[in-house]
């Protein structure tokens, strides 16, 4: 049963500035609507409870990828196709490109946006683990100005985020970090289209055999896309050997909180999460 189409409003602001004014002047009335690949699914299932949306999809000022010495910066409306086509992202942020290529099929990738994936806040989304492992920062804009926040910590609970009703996610910034090994693996029912059962993104830098830097994030194992800092702390500064890998997988089990749902079970997710972590660490040393 579809939602009742005439009850929805979708207006197109002429600019980001106009969108921000609407968000500020009519508090909580409007929500942004980007590529629609999540919201239209809710509409079809009659689960789209909010009624009034700002059509930000045509705002090309939010669709760009720029590179400077220290960062790659993406407009929030960069699509999965845009991400995969960018040479610097392919070279330096391969996990983000892999996440983009494993989200839906081409028709979804042409329409789904990175900003939408973040704000939709599904714990099963594919790009957040990569963004967390890359230590992404988010630019939140409002009439009062802009502020940068760390993506780590942005999700505070199931579909809860550190963004005000009058703010719009406008840019995503990734620090360029040489010398990392990258590991991204999504486990789903089939290769294309599937929503993840478990997804792990990890980056690691060794000095000799000592873990100099490590960042690990998982999807579908908690109410939010989860950066696993406790597991990272077990690893950092230690000699990467099989005993440490065993300790890390035990810590991971204590840090995540997978559940049974339509896509998988708690036990399977726990086991696969540990196996993916072990695979990541084994391949990286």
């Amino acid at each position, binding site marked *: 049963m*579809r*939602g009742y*189409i*005439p*009850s*929805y*409003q*979708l*207006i*197109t602001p002429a600019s980001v500035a106009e969108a921000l004014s609407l968000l500020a002047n009519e508090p909580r009335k409007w929500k942004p*609507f980007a*590529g*629609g*690949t999540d919201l*239209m*699914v809710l*509409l*079809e*299932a009659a689960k789209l409870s909010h009624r009034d*949306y700002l*059509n930000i*999809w*045509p705002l090309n000022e939010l669709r760009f990828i720029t590179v400077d010495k220290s960062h790659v910066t993406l407009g929030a409306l960069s699509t999965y*196709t845009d991400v995969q086509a960018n040479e610097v992202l392919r070279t330096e942020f391969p996990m983000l490109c892999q996440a983009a*290529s494993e989200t*839906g*099929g*081409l*028709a*979804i990738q*042409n*329409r789904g946006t990175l900003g939408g994936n973040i704000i939709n806040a599904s714990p099963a989304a594919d790009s957040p683990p990569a963004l967390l492992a890359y230590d992404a920062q988010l630019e939140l804009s409002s009439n009062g100005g802009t502020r940068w926040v760390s993506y780590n910590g942005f999700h505070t609970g199931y579909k809860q985020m550190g963004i005000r009703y009058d703010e719009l996610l406008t840019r995503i910034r990734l620090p360029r970090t040489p010398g990392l090994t990258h590991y991204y693996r999504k486990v789903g029912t089939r*290769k*294309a*289209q599937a929503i993840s059962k478990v997804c792990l993104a990890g980056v690691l830098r060794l000095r000799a055999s000592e873990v100099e830097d490590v960042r690990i994030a998982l999807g579908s194992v908690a109410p939010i896309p989860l950066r696993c800092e406790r597991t990272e702390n077990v690893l950092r500064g230690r000699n990467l050997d099989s005993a440490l890998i065993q300790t890390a997988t035990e810590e991971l089990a204590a840090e995540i909180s997978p559940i049974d749902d339509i896509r998988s079970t708690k036990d399977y997710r726990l086991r696969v999460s540990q196996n993916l972590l072990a695979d990541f660490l084994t391949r990286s040393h």
Partner: protein
Amino acid sequence: MESKVRVSFTVNGNAHALEVYPMARLLDVLREQLRLTGTKEGCGEGECGACAVMINGEIVNSCLVPIAQAEGAEIKTIEGVAVGDQLHSVQQAFIEHGGAQCGICTPGMVLAAVDLLSRNPQPTDDEIRVGLAGNLCRCTGYMKIFESVVRAYQK
């Protein structure tokens, strides 16, 4: 109750300006208002690709596009793939090599293949699989479709 808005776009080169509810699905506008029923509804949630159309040269699922986002767009549907009676090489190959059975997935499959070959005229087997990965078929077992795409670009 919100009111209708005017949205202007072209479909297969023909200009349209319609009074529509802004959240109406492009799929429904094509099928019910413009009577272009070649575009099919399968799952209605972006999983199956039966509703695929091209917007400004990019393949999309029309079940996931609210009509307000079609403002100013150039849309191509399956009805716009052949030129008069001249079938596209992909359509001809689907006929000759059994790429279509029940036909529900076929418009989306043909558009996905046309899109792939327009971007990549000599795709590898893996590239064909990626190009068709967003489209489900319940009849053919996919091999006939795959072979049709291969034959289409070998012509």
